C-alpha cells in the first residue's frame, strides 16, 4: 500500500503548481485552471488523511468541494465570457479598471 505521505507530497506539488500558475499567468482561463488545481490538491490531501485516519468526514468534504468547484467554474467561465465580450481580451493586466 502506498504510504499516505506520498499523497501529501503530490498534493503539495499540485498546490505549488496552482500557486505558481496564479502568480505568473495572465490569462484568466489559466488562472481559473490554476485555482481548480489548488482545490484538487486539497481534495487529494483530504482523501489521504481520510485513508490514514479511517474517517469518512474527509470524503464528505471532498464531495462538497467538488460541488463548489463545479459551481465556481460555471460562474467563473460565465464571467470570463462576459468580460471577453466587453473587452475582446482575457488578459488580467489589461482589465485593471479599478486600479488607481
Amino acid at each position, binding site marked *: 500500500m502506498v504510504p499516505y505521505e506520498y499523497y501529501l507530497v503530490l498534493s503539495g506539488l499540485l498546490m505549488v503548481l496552482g500557486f505558481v500558475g496564479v502568480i505568473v499567468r495572465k490569462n484568466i482561463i489559466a*488562472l481559473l485552471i490554476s485555482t481548480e488545481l489548488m482545490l484538487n490538491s486539497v481534495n487529494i490531501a483530504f482523501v489521504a488523511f481520510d485513508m490514514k485516519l479511517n474517517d469518512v468526514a474527509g470524503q464528505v468534504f471532498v464531495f462538497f468541494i467538488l460541488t463548489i468547484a463545479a459551481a465556481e467554474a460555471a460562474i467563473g467561465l460565465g464571467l470570463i465570457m462576459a468580460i471577453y465580450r466587453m473587452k475582446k481580451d482575457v488578459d488580467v493586466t489589461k482589465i485593471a479598471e*479599478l486600479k*488607481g
Partner: protein
Amino acid sequence: MEYLWIIPFSPLIAFVIIGLFGYKFLREPLSGIVAVIGVAISAIASIIGFIDVAKTGNYYNLKLFNWMTIGDYNIAVSILWDPLSALMTCVVTCVSTFIFIFATGYMKGDESYPRFFAYLSLFVFMMLMLTLSDNLVQLFFGWEGVGLASYLLIGFWHYKKSAANAAMESFVVNRVGDWLFLLGILLAFVTFGTLDYIQIFNKVPGVSVGIITAIALLLFGGAVGKSAQIPLHIWLPNAMEGPTPVSALIHAATMVAAGVYMVARLMPVFAASEVALNTVMFIGTMSAFIAATMGLVQNDIKRIIAYSTLSQLGYMFAAEGLGLFGEGMFHLTSHAVFKALLFLGSGSVLIALHHLLDIQKMGQIGRAMPITMGTFLIGSLALAGIPPFVGFFSKDSIIEGAFEVNKFVFMLLWAGAFLTAFYIFRLFFLTFFSTDRLDPHLREHLHESPPNMTIPLIVLASATVILGFFKEFFLNFLKPSLEPHSMKFLSEEAKIFVFEGLSRSHNVEIEANAFHFLGHSLSSFLGIVLLATALAGIFTAYVIYQLRKVDPVKIGEMFQPLYKLFYNRWYFDYIYYAIFVYGYYKLSKVLWFVGDKIVIDGIVDGSAKVSIFSGDIFRKTQIGRISGYVLQMLIGTAIFLALFLIIR
C-alpha cells in the same frame, strides 16, 4: 484744593474736542484757539495752586479714582500737589501756553493744523499726569504717554521718511529706558508693597542699601532714556524732525526734563544710595561735556540747540548727583524758559527762511528780524551764563557746587561751560551776522514774524531776564519738597536718613540770594574764572565767525581726529545702528530663515513629507493584480510557518 483736577483734564478736554471735531468744524484757526484756551485754563489753575502752596508750604494729596487694586494696594489716579510738583506743573503749563500761541503762527497753513494741536494738547495732558502723580504707576502712565505724544509729534510730517524714522527711533530708544523703569517699579512694589511716593519715602530707611540702589538705578535708567542722557541720547537730535514748537515744548522745556523731575521727586530714594547718586552725577557730567563737544561742529540750527539741551540736562543731573536738588530744579526751570526761547527764535528764523536749516547758508539776517535777533541774543547769553540772565544764576551755582564736592566733575562741567558759550555764539553769529551767504531769493522774502510769534518770544525773553532774581524765592519755595528737615510728609526717622544721604552737599555754600550771588561771583576767584570762561567762549566765537580772523576750516583740519570724532557724534549713532538696528534686523532675518523656516518648519513639514514619502513607497506594493497579492500572501504564509517552526 479740589479744583486741581482741572489742571490735567482741561488739555484733555481740548484734545478730545479737537480730535473729534477738528477737521470737520474747527479747522484753522479755531482748533488752535481751543487748544490755547485749554492749556491757559490749566496754567491759571496751576498758578493759583502755586500761590497757595507758596503761601502755606503745605502739600495736598488727592485721590481721584481707583485704577486698579493689587492685593491691598490701590493704584489710584491722583494728584500730589507740593512745591516740587507745583513748580514743575507751572513750568509745563506756562511754557506750553506761550508755545501754543507761537504755534498758532508757526503752523499757519499746514494742512494738518487741527491734528497738531490735538497732539500738543494730548502731550500736555500726559505731561501733567506725570508731574501731578503721587505714585509710580501714574508716573509711568504719563511717562509713556508723553513718549507717545513725542512720537506722534516728531512724526508729525510723517510723509518724510526721515521724520517717520526719527519718530520710531525716539519711541524705541525711550522704550529701552522705560523697560528699566518698569522693572524699577516692579522691584519697588515687591520691596515696599506700595507705589505711593510718600509711603515709599517713609519705608526707605528700613530697606537694605543694595535693593534701594537697584531700584534707584533702574528708575534712573528710565530717566536716561527720557532725558536723552548718554548712552541713550541718540534719539533727541533726530527728534528735531518735528515742527519747531514741538522741539521747544517737548524736546527742550518739558518732556526731556521729566527725568530730572523724576529724580528730584524721588529724592529720598536716590539719597539713600551713594552709588545711585554717583551714577546720576557721572552720567550727567559725561552728557554735559560730550554733548557740548558734539554741538561744536554741527551745522543744523536745530540740532545744535538739541545738543545744547542734552548738555544742559546733563548739568541738571550732575546737580542732582551732587546733592543739589534745589539747584537742579532751578536750572530746569530756567532752562525751560531760555531753551524754549531759543527754539522759538530758531523757529521764527526757519519760517522766514522757508525751513532752511543749515547755518552755513544763513548770515546777516539779524537786521531784517530785529525782535527775533534780540530775543535770541538774550537766550544765548542766558545759555552762556552771562549775568544778569537766568542761566547765569542757575548754571554757575551748579559748577560752583561741583567745585566743592568733586573736582573731576567740576573740570568737565567747567570745560562744558566754555564749549556752551562758544557753540551758541557760533550759531548766533553765523545766523544773524557774519557774511551774507543767504540765497538771494530767500533774502527777498525775508521778514519779521507776525505778532502771535513775536509776543511769546518777548514774554519768554523778559522771563529770562527777570527770573534769575527770584532764585532765593525758588529755593525757599522748594524746601518743603527737597530739604529733608522741611519735608512734612517724611517721618522723623526718614528725615534723618535722607539728610545723611545727602551729606556730600552739606559743606556746599551757595548764595541763595541773587544779588549776593552776583556780588560773590564778581569778587571770588572761582566766580571770576567762570565768568571769564563764558566770556572767552563768546569772544572766541566772535573772533572766528564774525571777524573771520581765523579760518574755522583750518582749525578743523588742525584737529582732524577730534573734529571727526565730534562731527560724527562720537560714533554713537553708527555703533548703535550697526548693532541694534541693522544687526538686530539681520539677525532676525537669519533666525527667521534658519530657525523658523528651516529648523522648526523643517521638522513640521518634514514629518508631513516623511509620511507622504513612505506612503508613496508602500503604495507601490498595492499593484492591483491578484497574482501579486497571491504572491504576497504566499510569502507571508511562508514567513509565519517558518516562525512557527522555529519558535515552537
